[in-house]
């Protein structure tokens, strides 16, 4: 079902290692903490090694070293970027202003991309989609209107601290209950999804490892 492909000895060895790791993690659920902690260290170590390998083989060498080696004078932006990284690494020994420049560029660029995308890709299209409009059928129009009303009530539910009358307060309360109902439905789905993950591990042990499942 989900074991490693192939029937070579190395594949079988990998399946055994995966099965033992799965048993250790499930053992943590039953109270065996020492081996579980060891498995967490193993995961952290493997992840660190993998990240280092990925950074070297897919980022530093092909995107920095090779272009600079091929044309040292033709890529000033790479030299500039390398300089900023070096300054960031040397921040503890430099005046704060030097370290602030590359960090400001990194954080500012990240925030600008995220904020711009959120406005253009989420806020404006979702506002447009939340407006009630006439649809081809009466039912669809009613659903569209109901969706707009629910959206409005939930938004009102988020307005804390503003002056409220009885009607506005009732609308805010309705909005919060509607939101809670939505979160409840989602949590039900989430329970199902976590069960699926647990069942997948058990199916791996019984099927791929022990061969008890067809």
């Amino acid at each position, binding site marked *: *079902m*989900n074991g490693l*492909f*192939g029937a070579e000895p190395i594949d079988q060895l990998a399946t055994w290692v995966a099965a033992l790791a799965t048993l250790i993690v*499930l053992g943590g*659920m*039953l*109270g065996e903490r020492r081996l579980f902690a060891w498995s967490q260290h193993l995961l952290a170590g493997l992840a660190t090694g*993998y*990240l280092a390998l*990925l950074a070297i083989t*897919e*980022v530093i060498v092909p*995107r920095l070293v090779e272009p600079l080696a091929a044309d040292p004078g033709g890529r000033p932006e790479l030299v500039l970027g390398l300089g900023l990284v070096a300054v960031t690494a040397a921040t503890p020994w430099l005046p704060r202003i030097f370290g602030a420049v590359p960090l400001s560029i990194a954080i500012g*660029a*990240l925030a600008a*991309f*995220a904020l711009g*995308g*959120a406005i*253009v*890709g*989420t806020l404006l*299209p*979702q506002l*447009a*989609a939340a407006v009630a409009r006439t649809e081809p059928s009466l039912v669809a129009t009613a659903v569209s209107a109901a*969706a707009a009303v629910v959206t409005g009530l939930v938004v009102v539910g988020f307005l804390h601290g503003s002056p409220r009358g009885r009607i506005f307060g009732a609308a805010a309360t309705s909005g919060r209950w509607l939101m809670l109902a*939505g*979160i409840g439905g*989602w949590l039900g*789905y*989430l*329970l*199902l*999804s976590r*069960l*699926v*993950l*647990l*069942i*997948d*591990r*058990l*199916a791996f*042990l*019984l*099927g791929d490892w022990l061969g*008890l*499942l*067809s």
Partner: protein
Amino acid sequence: MTDLTRRAPWLWRALLLLALALALLPTTDLLRLAGSLDAADGMVAIVDDLPPESLVLVGFDPDLGTYAEIRPTVRTLLADLLEHDARLVFVSLTPEGRALAIAERARLLASAVAPERLMDVGFVPGAEAALVSLARAVDGTGDGLVAGLPDEPFALGLVIGGNDIGPRSWVEQFEPRVVAVEIVAVAPTVLLPELTPYLESGQLRALLATPRDGAAYRESVAPTPLGDFDGPAPLAVLVGVLVAVAVLGFAVVSGLGDSLRSSRGREPA
């Protein structure tokens, strides 16, 4: 019973594991995980409408922890796309996604899929900025930061989500810049509330984001030569849900009993 639970606190958890394991053994057709097959209509229609030799950009960024939930659906969808003569171009924007993309691509290559149908752009670092570079490269206005893309138009963007850079990031960064390429997504349930609005607004053309939707999709498509990818056993899921409901019911009844006892204790004698 309380004494037993105190001596062996792991007993109930062990019994749950045993019950789930036993529920995996019998095979039955009486239970189905899929609800209405209509849930998968959007994805089926889009894949069916793809012309032969279409280029599909596969943004492969699932999360290691939740990938098992969507793995059978992802494998079925990739197999179905290849069955429709699509050519897949894998790209990952997160390290975890890259690891899983390597594994899935290797699995497909081991299943005798031709390498030219499974192109690999690799890992593109830079999160949202990388997605913008990717969009520009697909749009033909690239800055050269993303290399290895074929010089042909893409017919579809398929995002396998679960990680930080998932379908939402694609909708926010990629879709406004490359309007011609529609986006479909497969994502774990944890992303359902985040992604459903995009499906309703049409920014995502199709979405499979729950075990039920995934099962509906797997039942909707014909078996492919690459295999039949089973999801979780419905009987085991049923047993697990019943246990969860029983625990919830026990907690509610226990809470009611406690509040009743404390209110009686406050009554004057």
